[in-house]
């Protein structure tokens, strides 16, 4: 992810570049974003941030995070998906699925059912991507800038938020639109 911050003084810009990088990493979306462009105007207390969503990892299937261990057992290879996976299997098959050990799932299923099960989606990163990006943006923008508005963009993959402590005027919406133009053109 590339980050560009402008408008503030040199120290503030550098600091906010790091804040953007670290915060998006913390919420787990850094690899899904192409470009983040932030404009700070501490004098008027207006902050604009526009992010371009890039390639999002493909959905995680049961086959990707488990290994077949014997005829009636699955071994979970990525523990972070375990709760979601178990909940899903219990929902679908009820008592025919048991958790035999922390990472071992026992199955009382027909062979073709097990084969079909491997293609079920455990987690789709697209599902909560926007939510996580918005959470990241909320952590980046100064806390005092509570008046917020978003600018819809024709390209669905750009999220733009304007934040201030004062009513947001048309000039800032125009500035945000200009920024969207730049973000769109960024390769």
């Amino acid at each position, binding site marked *: 992810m590339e980050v560009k911050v402008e408008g*503030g*003084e040199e*120290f*503030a810009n550098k*600091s*906010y570049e*790091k*804040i953007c990088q*670290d*915060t998006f990493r*913390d919420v787990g979306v850094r690899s899904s974003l192409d470009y983040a462009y932030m404009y*700070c105007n*501490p*004098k008027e*207390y207006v902050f604009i941030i526009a992010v371009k969503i890039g390639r999002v990892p493909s959905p995680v299937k049961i086959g990707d995070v488990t290994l077949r261990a014997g005829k009636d057992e699955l071994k979970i290879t990525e523990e972070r998906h375990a709760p979601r996976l178990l909940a899903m299997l219990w929902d679908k098959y009820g008592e025919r699925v048991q958790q035999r050990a922390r990472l071992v799932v026992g199955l009382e299923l027909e062979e073709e059912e097990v084969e079909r099960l491997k293609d079920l989606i455990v987690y789709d990163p697209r599902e909560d991507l926007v939510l996580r990006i918005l959470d990241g943006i909320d*952590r980046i923008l*100064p*806390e*005092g*800038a*509570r008046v917020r508005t978003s600018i819809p963009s024709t390209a669905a993959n750009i999220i733009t938020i304007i934040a201030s*402590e*004062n009513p947001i005027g048309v000039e800032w919406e125009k500035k945000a639109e200009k920024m969207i133009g730049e973000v769109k053109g960024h390769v």
Partner: protein
Amino acid sequence: MYKIMMFTGGVYRFNELKELVEDIGGFVLQEMVMQTETMMHLAFPEEEERKIRAKATDLGGKLKELPLAGAEVMVVVPSLGKHHAVYPMCDIAEFLRRTGAITNMMGLARGVGKRIAQMTTQEKAIIEECDAAVFVFGDFKECIEEKAVKLCEMMEVPYMIVGGPPDLDLEHYVGGVGRKTDRMKRKAEIDKLEEMTTEFEQVLDDKRKEIEEDPLAASPLFIKEMIEMVLPPKAGEELPIVIHLDGLRVKIEEEDEERIKDIEIGERKLSEICEIKKSLYEGYLLKILTEAETGSVF
């Protein structure tokens, strides 16, 4: 004047050091024994430093100066949200503690923003209960300048401002910190924290000099000792008495308030040489009056 130092070393014969401190009219402020290691904060008359140093060398321990010892400091941030806590406020508080200060942390209710930043009178009163305050602000010059006027300048206790922009024309300002997303653990950052503590020493020194010019009726260290004789600290209680430069914070139950008032300090009662009031934050505050007001206690 008392000098406060920290001793660290083994438990072997460390009682001898304690006895020596008591013999020369000093006090043990804090003591912590961790298996075979000990840590003690000692206060003793300045002129006896050589004796203490000799004893510490004899015991194979180390002595470290604590320039901020004897002061309770409030670290103030605009809010306790992710934006200001935990970094860098905890790093700052940690470095103040390493040099002897007792620190408290406080997030303001409405301290965020530029135009909308404000402080309630109760918050101001709580901060002023401490000896000094450290305000930790963010990255923008304009915000810090406005907040310095709105939040800091009305303070009646000495204060320091820590912020982002490296050069700002404000009194007791340390720049180069600003908003952080991780711990300040790199060499340059640690140097910055040390620079900050040195600046803070100056802030406190001004207050110390003021007190020296018009000395207190009795030293807070001496009063602490006398209170502990009447109300010994309960097991496991941490810092029941916090020393201030010109008083103490005593964490006691309400029913003990009368007992505290009657404690004899020399020929006087504690209530005669101290202003006692309930703290808005924790315990009771004892503000020691000056000797000029009370006359000699002996």
